[in-house]
């Protein structure tokens, strides 16, 4: 049977049955369902929760009833198939994802962006209708009775 693993960063959830020093632990919360706790240093920082696929819809609905935060979280979990994080984490990532440090693009993308920037700067400097490579032809246009801005 297919099962979902719901992953969410939750700094406050600690497995009560965890042994000291273990990097992860697993507890069964109810029959057919279990939770996985991953720990960094002393605190649990990631919880994974498995449950049958059918349960997901009901869980999302329950979450969304808890208010906007719940709604955002359930949306996130649905759109990523499984992945939901705390709201603050989502915001942090949204704010930082535009930077090269957090989400480095491929060299190809950066090169293209660079060329695009050159094109825009050239256009901005001469104004688009008058860029040299394209103009020098007002006389030609005029001779054909065509009015151009350049």
């Amino acid at each position, binding site marked *: 049977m*297919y*099962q*979902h*693993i719901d*992953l969410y*960063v939750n700094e406050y959830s600690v497995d009560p049955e965890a042994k000291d020093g273990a990097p992860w632990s697993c507890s069964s919360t109810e029959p057919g369902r279990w939770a996985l706790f991953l720990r960094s240093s002393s605190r649990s920082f*990631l919880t*994974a929760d*498995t449950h049958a696929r059918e349960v997901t819809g009901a869980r999302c609905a329950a979450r969304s009833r808890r208010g906007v935060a719940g709604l955002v979280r359930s949306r996130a979990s649905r759109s*990523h*198939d*499984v*992945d939901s*994080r705390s709201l603050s984490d989502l915001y942090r*990532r949204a704010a930082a994802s535009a930077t090269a440090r957090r*989400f*480095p*693009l*491929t*060299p*190809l*993308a950066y090169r*293209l*962006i660079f*060329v*695009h920037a050159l*094109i*825009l700067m*050239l*256009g901005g400097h001469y*104004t*688009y*209708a*008058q*860029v040299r*490579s*394209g*103009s*020098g*032809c007002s006389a*030609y*246009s005029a001779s*054909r009775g*065509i*009015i*151009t*801005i*350049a």
Partner: protein
Amino acid sequence: MQRVFGFTRNHYDRIGHLAQGFVPAIVAREILIRRSPLRAGKWLFFIVLSVCLAISACYELIEWWSALIGGSAADAFLGTQGDPFDTQADMFMALIGAVAAQVLLARVHDRQIAKTATESTHHSSLTRARLVARL
């Protein structure tokens, strides 16, 4: 340029709009491949194309607004150059750019994405957290 091709207008503006489809296509493609369940294929192609056309449409809206605000002075910046179908032509150039980028660069891009993905896996807790859904 006009002299060479017998154009009746300055086409630098068109190059700009070609780039406006070409460059965002690769950026959109990259973000979708790396951050969504989409994989290279027809749907990715279509959605990237849609994103580029949407960006181009937004730019045309801005052109329109600046023309309303700036009056005739805007004409040189806009490069409408008296062409009533300038907006449509601009968007068409973006469409050509987006198609061209995806056709010409898809393979190189996929290769580079594969490379970046393996490099960045170990410092992205997000990727690590995606322990895949199916048991």
